């Protein structure tokens, strides 16, 4: 009954998953249906349940690790069951040798390639041992540098630390000038002597400086400068470019670099739409938003111009009958685009209901991959933040995206009943359509954005 648990494939485009959390540790009992672990797919976290009763006998990856889908991550089996063969099989699939003992999981600590070599090699030789040439060891000892604690990156034979590395380290390490007494005092008080400002000759740290630092720890802390970049910028925080941030980054840069974007802006008079929305919201329970009307206008436009509701797939341009409308949402973990599937026949109120349900899930990070994939066009509305105008990057493999800005009262030239031109104050909103010029030409895009404008300015057409 031993069962190999694999990294699940939770979406068509999912190639690897990141293990966010193990709900069980090795040795824990688990029941069928209990959550076993949580996986970050390309945009959301999903809890995976155990599929059988048993004990968690072996975990192959740690929280935070990424692994290709379908590779083994754990074994659930009977408490005493022999799982040696299964473990060997799992390691074979992972392309690793089954370790005699548990290896220290240290490889992820360093990012520099050479440092990684050192770390891996160190792991092989047991903890606390650095690879260094005999000469480097001798030189380090003579200079009073402890290779075990000094953070020296090896560039020598097989990534080991050689003499040059030690000398470079010694040259780059800041030298603290302090009297022996001051050093001793700082050491016994646990104060980092490099953080104490010296008042002696050439900034030498004296006994009284250490005493001063001890008397006012805040003052000492105040003089401490945070981590600096090489060119002297003080660093507030370092955040790994990973997970959702990285996915957003990679998808959008691939879109921007592969799809030639062209942009078409129209100014829309929202006077009638705002009036209509007021009436709709008064006449039924579901409160509709401006976005819902824009969504409906876009859906109608895409049905009129299906060439925009298209994707470039290899050598083929696929034009879709289905309108799967994505709505960009700022979720806590980053941008996500839930998709209203088969929205082509939905009314404004139906769109509103579907959208608010999806947006709420998105904000809670609970969207399933099915709910944020398969879109054919996207709307990105930053109107609520007062943005006057912006352009959006197409969400691949779609071919267009509509950037919706804020409605603001503006003086506009209107024609009155007498046929005279006059200036009036109207709620005006900019919309900018971005299209992939490989698939969509400018005329079509201009017609489409004009159609959206026309629909929004005569909003009764949205209900025909």
């Amino acid at each position: 009954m031993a069962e190999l648990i694999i990294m699940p494939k939770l979406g068509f485009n999912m190639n690897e998953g990141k293990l966010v959390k193990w709900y069980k540790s090795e040795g824990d009992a688990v029941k069928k249906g209990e959550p076993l672990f949580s996986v970050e797919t390309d945009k959301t976290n999903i809890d995976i349940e155990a599929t059988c009763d048993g004990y968690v006998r072996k975990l192959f990856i740690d929280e935070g690790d990424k692994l290709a889908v379908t590779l083994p991550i754990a074994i659930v089996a009977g408490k005493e069951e022999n799982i040696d063969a299964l473990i060997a099989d799992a390691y074979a699939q992972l392309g690793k040798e089954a370790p005699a003992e548990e290896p220290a999981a240290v490889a992820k600590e360093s990012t520099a390639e050479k440092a990684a070599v050192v770390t891996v090699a160190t792991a092989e030789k047991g903890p606390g041992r650095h690879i260094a040439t005999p000469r480097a060891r001798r030189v380090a000892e003579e200079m009073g540098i402890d290779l075990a604690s000094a953070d020296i990156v090896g560039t020598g034979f097989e990534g080991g630390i050689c003499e040059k590395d030690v000398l470079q380290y010694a040259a780059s390490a800041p030298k603290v000038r302090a009297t022996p007494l001051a050093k001793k005092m700082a050491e016994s008080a646990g104060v980092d002597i490099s953080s104490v400002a010296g008042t002696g000759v050439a900034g030498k740290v004296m006994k009284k400086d250490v005493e001063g630092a001890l008397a006012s720890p805040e003052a000492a802390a105040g003089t401490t400068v945070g981590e600096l970049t090489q060119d002297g910028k003080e660093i507030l925080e370092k955040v790994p470019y990973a997970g959702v941030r990285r996915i957003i980054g990679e998808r959008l840069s691939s879109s921007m670099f592969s799809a030639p974007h062209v942009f078409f802006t129209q100014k829309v008079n929202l006077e009638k739409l705002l009036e209509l929305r007021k009436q709709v919201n008064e006449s039924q329970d579901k409160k509709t938003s401006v976005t819902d009307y824009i969504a409906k206008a876009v859906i109608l436009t895409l049905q009129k111009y299906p060439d925009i509701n298209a994707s470039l797939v290899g050598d083929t341009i696929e034009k879709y009958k289905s309108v799967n409308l994505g709505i960009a949402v700022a979720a806590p973990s980053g941008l996500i685009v839930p998709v209203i599937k088969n929205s082509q026949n939905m009314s404004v109120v139906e769109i509103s209901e579907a959208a608010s349900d999806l947006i709420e899930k998105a904000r809670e990070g609970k969207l399933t991959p099915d709910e944020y994939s398969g879109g054919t066009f996207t709307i990105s509305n930053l109107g609520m933040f007062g943005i006057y105008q912006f352009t959006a990057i197409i969400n691949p493999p779609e071919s267009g995206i509509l950037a919706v800005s804020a409605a603001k009262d503006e003086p506009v030239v209107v024609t009155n009943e007498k046929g005279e031109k006059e200036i009036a104050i109207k709620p005006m909103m900019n919309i900018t359509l971005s299209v992939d010029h490989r698939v969509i030409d400018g005329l079509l895009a201009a017609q489409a954005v004009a159609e959206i404008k026309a629909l929004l300015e005569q909003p009764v057409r949205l209900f025909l």
Partner: protein
Amino acid sequence: MKEITYAQAICEALDEEMERDENIVLLGEDISFIGGNFKTSVGLLEKYGDMRVKDTPISEAGFVGMGVGMALTGLRPVIELMFSDFLLVAADQVINQAAKIRYMSGGQVNVPMVIRAPIGAGRSSAAQHSQSMQAMVSQFPGLIVVVPSTAQEAKGLLKTAIRDNNPVLFFEHKMEYNKKFLVDDVVEPIPFGKANVVREGKDITIVATSSLVMKSQEAAEKLEKEGISVEVIDLRTIVPLDIDTVVESVKKTGKLIVADEAHERCGVGAEIGFQIMEKAFYYLDAPVGRVNTPNVPLPFSPALEFPIIPSVDRIYKKVVEMVK
């Protein structure tokens, strides 16, 4: 200072020594009328007569054995083997007799004999005439093994070899014979067991033998332009081995390459590398590197032969690999 070929320098050493000591006799194939296969005894027959310059049959075991007997009875034979590969034909006389007699007679007799033999590949001489035997013979106690570099060095070291009272294997490089070198007008004997630092440097040491001394210097000049400072040591003699000079250099540079044209396996590099590990362990900043002929027979085809001969480029690349 004059410009002469390496072969002429050998010839001059033989001439000057024969003139100095009438007990010196030359034995070998084609050395008298023809003046030596590589022209290293031109004019000596005419000057010293056929009692002192003797052509021999193609019978290395026989005439090397004759040389051992001559040496035991007071002559100082200098024997030419046309190729060092033929040492194997005479191996019993060299290794079991010449090398052992002084020891086995309790020092009652010496064998003051020199065997000159060309080493090295590069002439399409194929697998049986291109070998470098210096590493192999260094195994056997009782033999002195000389691997001179330039014509000047060859001349000085050959004089020392002739004056030494022990059997000396003197390995000349066949690719050097026709090259011209600047040689002092008067060349004094060069003492054995004293390696020569021919180029000072601080990043890496190359200890080389024979032709590879010149190739290492050439590589070092190229490396100097790239900011790598190479120290080159001419080992001069493998037995006795001047390990102290190498140790001193490695203490300075931390890195060592041993360049010798014999096959890599159990070669000079293996010996020197090991001794450095014992004597300068805490000064080593990288594993000792070797530049040798790979462990394969030498091919006849130049297209196959040249790539396996240790070259300037291989030395250069080995240094770059170890220093960068």
